[in-house]
């Protein structure tokens, strides 16, 4: 609930409000608020400092109250999750109702947002930047992987990334051969390793490499050298930024339907396997690891260009262009 609390602090505590507003130079025409937490701050800023002229866009990444309820339920049980979920819902509804434009990352989220928004809700899927792979990045990746054949999981320490991992792999890591490794890049790597469940998963310890936080160059190296990418996400709304990265990497991808949300058009793409059940997910990994390295045809490569930010952000740019300027307060 730190996100929610920071939002409350920034909008309601005058000292914090002043400190934060001092970071903003001039009067923006449009303010895009990513996630709902700081939307109340932005509303106060527009009212008090921008004479009501700035347009507000709410960029939803998730249906936050639903996700937070799942996370808190896992930690403290359903009864105690009710109040925090309600507070987040209020915060989220304030953003949806107060925005001049709402962006959703998936059609699923857009449906919910439209039922509460008083303005247009547009679909702006997550995307990826085309980055270059360097020899240095590959060398750094090799230093982590020992040039073994790897499946890569890129994830932050966001709780669903950890719980999803253990839901999918908790029974045992039989899907990788003794010569293969699962590399976890990002903060999830160390969180998974220090979780009390880690040591109890048969076969995991010897097949697991935590890369932890890596440089952008090394991440590109890992995406280049990996044989497959796994997305064992079982909870959450919205879309997963890492899914776009995984699809763009052009390697085998094994993902849950939750991880593929917003990227459904790729569910049957070359090298993509979508599995919901843990057993089927693990078997799909083994099958993918036994296949030849994925080689995409020109048509597939061209299709995947729709994952780039330059494509995914087009609806947002058009919508911003179409926003009516606000009439300044008298």
């Amino acid at each position, binding site marked *: 609930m730190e996100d929610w609390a920071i939002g409350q602090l920034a909008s309601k505590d005058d000292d914090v409000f002043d400190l934060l507003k001092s970071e903003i130079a001039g009067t923006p025409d449009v303010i895009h608020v990513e996630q709902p937490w700081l939307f109340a701050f932005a509303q106060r800023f527009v009212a008090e400092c921008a004479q009501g002229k700035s347009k507000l866009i709410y960029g939803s990444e998730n249906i936050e109250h639903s996700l937070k309820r799942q996370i808190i339920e896992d930690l403290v049980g359903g009864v105690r999750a009710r109040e925090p979920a309600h507070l987040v819902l209020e915060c989220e509804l304030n953003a949806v109702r107060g925005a001049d434009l709402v962006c959703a990352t998936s059609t699923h989220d857009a449906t919910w947002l439209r039922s509460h928004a008083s303005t247009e809700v547009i679909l702006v899927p997550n995307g990826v930047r085309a980055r270059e792979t360097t020899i240095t990045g590959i060398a750094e990746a090799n230093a982590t992987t020992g*040039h073994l054949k790897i499946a890569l999981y890129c994830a932050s320490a966001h709780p669903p990334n950890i719980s999803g991992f253990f839901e999918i792999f908790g029974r*045992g890591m039989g*899907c990788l051969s003794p010569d293969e490794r699962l590399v976890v890049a990002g903060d999830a790597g160390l969180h998974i390793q220090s979780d009390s469940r880690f040591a109890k998963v*048969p076969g995991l310890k010897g097949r697991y490499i935590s890369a932890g936080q890596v440089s952008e160059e090394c991440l590109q190296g890992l995406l*280049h*050298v*990996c044989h497959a990418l796994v997305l064992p996400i079982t909870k959450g709304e919205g879309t997963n930024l890492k899914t776009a990265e995984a699809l763009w990497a052009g390697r085998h991808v094994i993902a849950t339907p939750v991880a593929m949300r917003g990227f459904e058009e790729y569910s049957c793409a070359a090298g993509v396997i979508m599995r919901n059940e843990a057993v089927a997910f693990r*078997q799909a990994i083994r099958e993918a690891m036994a296949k030849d390295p994925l080689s995409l045809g020109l048509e597939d490569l061209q299709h995947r260009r729709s994952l780039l930010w330059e494509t995914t952000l087009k609806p947002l740019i058009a919508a911003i262009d179409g926003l009516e300027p606000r009439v300044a307060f008298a």
Partner: protein
Amino acid sequence: MSERGARTWINVTTSVNWTRPPVGIVRVERALVEHLQKQLGQDLCRLCVWKDDRFTEWVPMATAIPPRISQALDVIIPRGPSFDIVRPYVVKALGKYSRARARSGGTADEMELVVPLDGASSLHPAPGDFLLSVGLDWDNVYTKHFFQLAKKQGLRIITCCYDLIPVLFPQYCVGEVAQKFTEYFLELSWGSEAVLCISEQTRKDYTRLCHELGAPMRRTVVIPLGDNLPSGESVIGDSVRAATECPFILFVSTIERRKNHEVLYRAYHILRRRGFSGPLPRLIFVGMPGWGVGDLLQDIELDPLTRGSIVQLNHVSDTELAYLYRQALFCIFPSLYEGWGLPVGEALAMGKAVVASGEGSLPEVGGDLVHYLPAWNPYEWADTIQAYVEHPELIAESERKVRAGYKPRQWSDTARTVRELIEELAATSAGDSLDLLAGYDMSTECGIYSGPSILSTGSAGLLLFGPHRALRRGRYRVCVYGSVLREHREPISIDVVSRQGLTIHASTNYQRSREESGIDLNIEMLFSMERDAEDIEVLCRVMKDAALQIDRVVVQSCA
């Protein structure tokens, strides 16, 4: 391919290190040694032990060594585990020398011993050979090496799954064994080409576990375990005679929680409490007390209702066991789970009536010849025991059915099933080709690993070397696949070598001609080997500024 067929090596590490009377698994290992060597011949069926990180031929020490040879042996070879393998060979040599000296009338004081140049390879399993490992493999380090032995040395490994009790019923085992055994079954699955299962139930349990874990499904074959008791000629001891003076019911099994001796104790308690006043037969437990039964054994000892009715016998010889089976009124086996259930088979082979639980694989052993009862219900066991005691005609009828219907399983049949599996697998080629992804399976000095490929970086030197794999003698084609990243017409040299580069099997200098265009690189060459190689290697040297990517190296038999 080599002219000689694949050998089968039986890993006898468990038996060699076993110093107590044989238990089930040791008996299986020894029975397979005896019968497979008979069926395949000693040249094609050899024994080996895990020693110094590899499997090495095991030649059993002659049982009776003449004192003079024994003395000489101690002078030449120190006693100690490091020399265990060489001692039998020296005994053989000394025996030969002794006979030569005797033939010469005591004049010969030297003897020529010829060590064949390829002797080293015949002491170890060669590529394409089968390794049969059916011992206590979860307690031995070699299991962790099976995957690499198959991958790098080309061994075709057949293992055995006895049961999944530690995984399915860890509560009946000592400590937290579920994880250890799950990991063991993972090693087994990744390292084996085929897995023998001692029952359909075990096969079902094992394949279900592989499915759950996402582990590879190997070929599985159910092997029937022999239930013919080894013949013995020892005398019947006093304790056995005393215990069998009055009629008795027999339960042969180690005394542990899973075997469910408790339900029988409770059944006896119920019978006595009911006031069953008839001559209740003695209940004899034959087996070693194990873990987790202390309270039960104390209850049996203290309970005034059952005191004297339940007797334990331990350290029973094969002769005594056969005697006990013969003398028993009937046999009983209430186990909560079994991977097979040898005592049920043994009792049936002796023509006895059997009452057993229907758990695990037991119905596979007994078919419809056994009277099955629910394992957890002592009242049903009490009722059935009472019925059998009050109506001996029920026992006689059951025995008649058993004698007419039970076909004892022979160890030779167990071995035949294994032999047929080996023959079937041998019909599929193995050990005679390598399909290598350069980036994972090979090494580079001047390039960089790039996932499955190796990329040149512009430096001159060894772009590719390895994989140091074993390969059988024969004629082969090597194909190096990759791509040219930038037009470059400097020569690329490719060598195929073994014995750490001492033997060069083939060399070529490849240079793109002016007519060749495109990015594909495909270099082919042929070579022959007259001996098996333990460390075949493909070397690729490039000049400065080469811009290549090597993806795949395939070594394929041209037989």
